[in-house]
């Protein structure tokens, strides 16, 4: 259903990118005020805003104008788009998409080839300075040929599309921090959007993939307030990434009590104990999984018995192993210690030989002390 909406909106010629407010648009679709309030309450919840802000959100949404959205996909797996389109296929959320004009998304749009690129160019031109640019995937810098669209390198397409954007939403860990393409040894020289675009506000929505509600929540926020939300030090909206998984995890009491699953099939695992020892990256991962959850709020990885892999953090792929507890060294220390000890033992014996030589020498030059030797001359 949402796909239909997207496909419909994929053609800028048919849409009305900036005409009318959201309120007008909804009323024209016969949406009642009561339905709108339900929509606002859900939107507030989605944006992790306190319910007391619902009236304000209602007012803002009422008067919001539909922005044009251009979605670029670079070195990615389409997981982010999948996540988004597999989200609650609900009327409520589709309203968010109703509220935007998705003018280019080459995976979702019906048009292809030159027609698609033409659509992008038109949207950019018509809404210059006002459109929202959404990017998923990383950008290869080694050889532009690693990833091109219609013969245009990712780098060129990004810099060109960014010029007229009001703001950029980097979706997924690839676009935000380089993600898996960036993982050691990074064969394509993949970088993030932020590494290239320096003069535009960028909202990072990391995750592999990001929680769909978080993606729509960020769009809703932009839609509602016409501005980018408050970001943390690595560009993530604080409302969704303000707290670590560990701090919000329902299994936290087990951590505090020292009750851990040691293997995936032991008593601890069955009792739902903390997965820290199985490599859970919850303590160093900031995301909304523990509260927002996945699959229509059904569950999230830890609830399903798997440790958090830290996918919304930069370089999560190179974090020393998903199943290695955070406090563990990433390399084999015992071997290092044994080699160091062995080498040092040899060195120690050598140093001691010098010491003993010195003592022997001092004994050798010692001349028996007599009572005549007790005063200096």
């Amino acid at each position, binding site marked *: 259903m949402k796909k239909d909406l997207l496909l419909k909106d994929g053609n800028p010629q048919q849409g009305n990118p900036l005409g009318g407010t959201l309120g007008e648009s909804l009323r024209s679709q016969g949406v009642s005020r009561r339905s709108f309030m339900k929509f606002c309450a859900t939107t507030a919840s989605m944006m*992790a805003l306190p319910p007391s802000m619902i009236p304000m959100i209602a007012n803002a949404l009422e008067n919001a104008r539909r922005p044009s959205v251009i979605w670029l996909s670079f070195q990615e797996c389409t997981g982010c788009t999948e996540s988004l389109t597999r989200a609650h296929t609900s009327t409520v959320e589709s309203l968010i998409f109703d509220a935007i004009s998705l003018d280019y998304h080459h995976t979702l749009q019906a048009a292809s080839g030159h027609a698609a690129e033409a659509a992008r160019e038109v949207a950019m031109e018509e809404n210059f300075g006002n459109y929202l640019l959404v990017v998923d995937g990383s950008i290869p810098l080694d050889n532009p040929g690693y990833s091109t669209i219609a013969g245009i390198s990712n780098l060129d397409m990004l810099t060109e599309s960014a010029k007229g954007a009001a703001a950029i939403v980097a979706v997924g860990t690839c676009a935000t921090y380089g993600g898996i393409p960036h993982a050691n040894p990074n064969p394509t020289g993949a970088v993030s959007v932020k590494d290239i675009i320096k003069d535009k506000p960028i909202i990072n929505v990391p995750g592999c993939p990001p929680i769909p509600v978080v993606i729509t929540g960020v769009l809703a926020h932009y839609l509602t307030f016409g501005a980018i939300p408050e970001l943390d030090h690595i560009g993530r909206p604080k409302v969704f990434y303000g707290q670590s998984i560990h701090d919000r995890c329902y299994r936290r009491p087990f951590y505090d009590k020292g009750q851990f699953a040691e293997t995936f099939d032991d008593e601890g695992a069955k009792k739902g104990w903390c997965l820290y020892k199985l490599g859970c990256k919850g303590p160093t991962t900031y995301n909304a999984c523990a509260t927002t959850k996945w699959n229509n709020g059904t569950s999230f990885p830890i609830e399903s018995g798997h440790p958090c892999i830290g996918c919304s953090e930069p370089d999560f792929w190179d974090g020393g192993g998903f199943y290695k507890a955070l406090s563990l060294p990433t390399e084999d220390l015992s071997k290092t210690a044994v080699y160091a000890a062995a080498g040092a033992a040899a060195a120690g014996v050598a140093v001691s030989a010098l010491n003993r030589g010195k003592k022997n020498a001092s004994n050798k030059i010692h001349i028996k002390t007599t009572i005549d030797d007790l005063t200096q001359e």
Partner: protein
Amino acid sequence: MSSVGITQFNIQMGDELTQNVQPLLHEIRHALAALLESGKASIIDLRSIPLAPGEEEAIIEALGKGEINARLEALGPSDIYETRFAGVWLTSHYNEDHVVVSRFIEITELPAILRSQREDMAGALETLNEELQKQATS
């Protein structure tokens, strides 16, 4: 947040997992006292609380059901009922697939969404006028 009876993988429920229930009930008690005293209504978004599997159900069970139960059909159904504690309402919004999209505990005399809305009433008046006119002309 699941209310569709998904079996929890591996989890055996224990007392230690429902530690959010008590504090939440206390929060509701404070809100109810404030409502009585100053008429100040409040809303708790259940989605903003990290709940363990089964905790939401435990809270709903603890609140029980009261006298009023309303069903709303707007962008999918919504269930709104007063719990066994007067002034404490539970609002559950579903999408068209009957999946909960948001759920609130409202401490108020009447949840705002139940009232007839001015815009809707204006629309209704217009519709009624139109229909009467139509009858008159026909």
